[in-house]
């Protein structure tokens, strides 16, 4: 079923008018209430009166993640703080993380778009959903939760981890829908086999998988083993969380809810729009958000977009699966990792050089693993294994506590990590995405 048929299947001309109307309102709202955007428009010499239709969006400056960091915690707010009812914070780099604030209307919007996404994936009211995304500062758990409440699903709010318990609840409650990262869906296969559960007999019929990039091959694998439909969900904390775009059962791209999140795909070098089906960086504008609206936010996710109509009837543009990133951020087990975070940790460990390489790979059982190769400084080389191992352990502990993800540290000889002119190749991603 289609949750909001009126907007999701709106003819393109009406959709454009709706976008233009909301866009004009947004620009005025931001100019009036957001100090950040007021000075941004001023600096760019923008006359608000010249911004009338959605086509004028290209006249406005882009908003970057670095700007969001500089505005931490609430510099981007366009409302008084007492109207912000909830906040979520991204896993930060070495400096500030990004904090987002939601007003009551923003939370309603979030529930609305996630309800659309759930229906788009095939959920119907009365179904039961097992939410195995983390609940907390991460938007995954609560985002799915609000949407599921809104559309009338029975929720098992498992949060992530505790595979045995996840499987027990699946077996006892028989939920039709599973929401988690795709790598966790694969990881649970092993747990099921240990518990003597035949994955193909599981109650899950629909998977809503996101928060990390995944391949068609991985989809085939998940669908075959669990005997379910595996769909892709897209979102980011800066825009709202999950619920920006979602695949329908045709699995031919993710429907982007463009009446509320206006998408552009730009050439990352020139910032000019690319043609239909060409890849570029996804730039999003929140047309109706109040708490912290964003105008032309550069997601750094590389996608293609098409405006061709989907057989499911929805008219919204569809984006491809994420094809890569314009920065060197990697997403490991749903957590954003920037090489600069690792560098910062190494700079504080005197026994090592800040020369490092990050290797990301996906284990056969589905979980991503992170390995960090670190050059040891000659003067700290000890012929005692325990001293060397303790350096390793110290780095591993710091990575875990700073990044919230476990990594394996491997000490290597000085001068062995390739130095290249210009940008060093810090990340080797061996995952087949």
């Amino acid at each position, binding site marked *: 079923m289609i949750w909001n048929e009126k907007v999701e299947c709106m003819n393109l001309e009406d959709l454009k008018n709706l976008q233009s109307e909301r866009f004009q309102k947004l620009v005025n709202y931001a100019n009036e209430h957001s100090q950040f955007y007021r000075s941004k428009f001023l600096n760019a010499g923008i006359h608000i009166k010249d911004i009338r239709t959605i086509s004028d969006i290209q006249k406005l400056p882009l908003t970057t993640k670095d700007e969001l960091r500089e505005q931490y915690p609430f510099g981007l707010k366009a409302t008084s703080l007492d109207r912000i009812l909830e906040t979520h914070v991204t896993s930060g780099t070495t400096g500030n993380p990004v904090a987002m604030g939601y007003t009551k209307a923003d939370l309603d919007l979030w529930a609305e778009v996630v309800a659309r996404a759930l229906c788009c994936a095939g959920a119907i009211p009365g179904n039961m959903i097992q939410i195995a995304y983390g609940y907390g500062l991460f938007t995954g758990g609560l985002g799915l939760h609000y949407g599921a409440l809104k559309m009338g699903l029975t929720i098992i709010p498992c949060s992530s981890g505790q595979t045995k318990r996840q499987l027990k609840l699946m077996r006892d409650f028989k939920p039709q829908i599973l929401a988690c990262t795709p790598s966790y869906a694969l990881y649970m296969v092993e747990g099921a086999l240990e518990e003597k559960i035949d994955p193909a007999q599981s109650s899950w019929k629909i998977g809503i998988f996101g928060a990390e990039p995944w391949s068609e091959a991985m989809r085939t694998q998940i669908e075959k083993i669990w005997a379910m439909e595996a769909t892709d969900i897209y979102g980011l904390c800066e825009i709202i969380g999950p619920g920006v775009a979602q695949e329908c059962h045709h699995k031919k791209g993710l429907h982007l809810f463009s009446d509320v999140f206006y998408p552009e795909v730009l050439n990352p070098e020139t910032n000019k729009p690319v043609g239909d089906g060409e890849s570029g960086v996804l730039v999003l504008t929140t047309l109706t958000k109040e708490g912290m609206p964003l105008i032309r936010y550069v997601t750094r996710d590389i996608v293609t977009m098409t405006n061709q109509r989907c057989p499911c009837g929805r008219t919204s543009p569809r984006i491809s699966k994420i094809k890569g990133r314009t920065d060197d951020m990697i997403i490991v087990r749903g957590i954003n990792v920037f090489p600069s975070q690792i560098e910062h940790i190494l700079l504080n460990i005197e026994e090592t050089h800040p020369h490092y390489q990050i290797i990301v790979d996906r284990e056969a059982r589905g979980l991503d693993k992170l390995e960090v190769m670190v050059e*040891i400084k*000659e003067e700290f*080389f*000890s*012929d*005692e*294994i325990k001293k*060397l*191992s303790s350096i390793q352990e110290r780095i591993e502990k710091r990575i875990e506590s700073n990044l919230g993800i476990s990594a394996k540290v*491997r*000490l*290597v*000889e*000085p*001068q*062995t990590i390739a130095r290249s002119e210009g940008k060093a190749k810090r990340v080797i991603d061996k995952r087949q995405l």
Partner: protein
Amino acid sequence: MKITQISIFLENKSGRLCEVAELLGKNNINIRALTIADAKDFGVLRIVVDKPKEAVDILKKNKMVATLTDIVVTEVGDQPGGLASVLRLLEDNKVNVEYMYGFVEKFSDKALMVFRFDNPDEAIKLLQKNKFKVIKKEEIKSL
């Protein structure tokens, strides 16, 4: 008398040990004793050679991480209980052994034990007082 041992950091990658051995061979350095301590993904190669200073220079010139450590080499009888006798002495005198390894002399009925102690000088005194032969630097070359 303390003997100089060379410790070399070895990444766990194929051919690395062979490279070290070839490098020393090419430069006419003879390995007299050897052991490898390995952790999960790296190892430390410990060797006693006839010309330690030269060997370290060559290794460093070839961008290897190497360091010198003082060790003590002592003779023990190459027979059942030979090793136990020296360990008993060390144990009774609370001498801490960081690590140790053994090798056998070619032309004698003795075995040689390499010890890394916290305090090599005191350990040497103890061994000598108890009639254990501690090998001298010059002897390493002629072993």
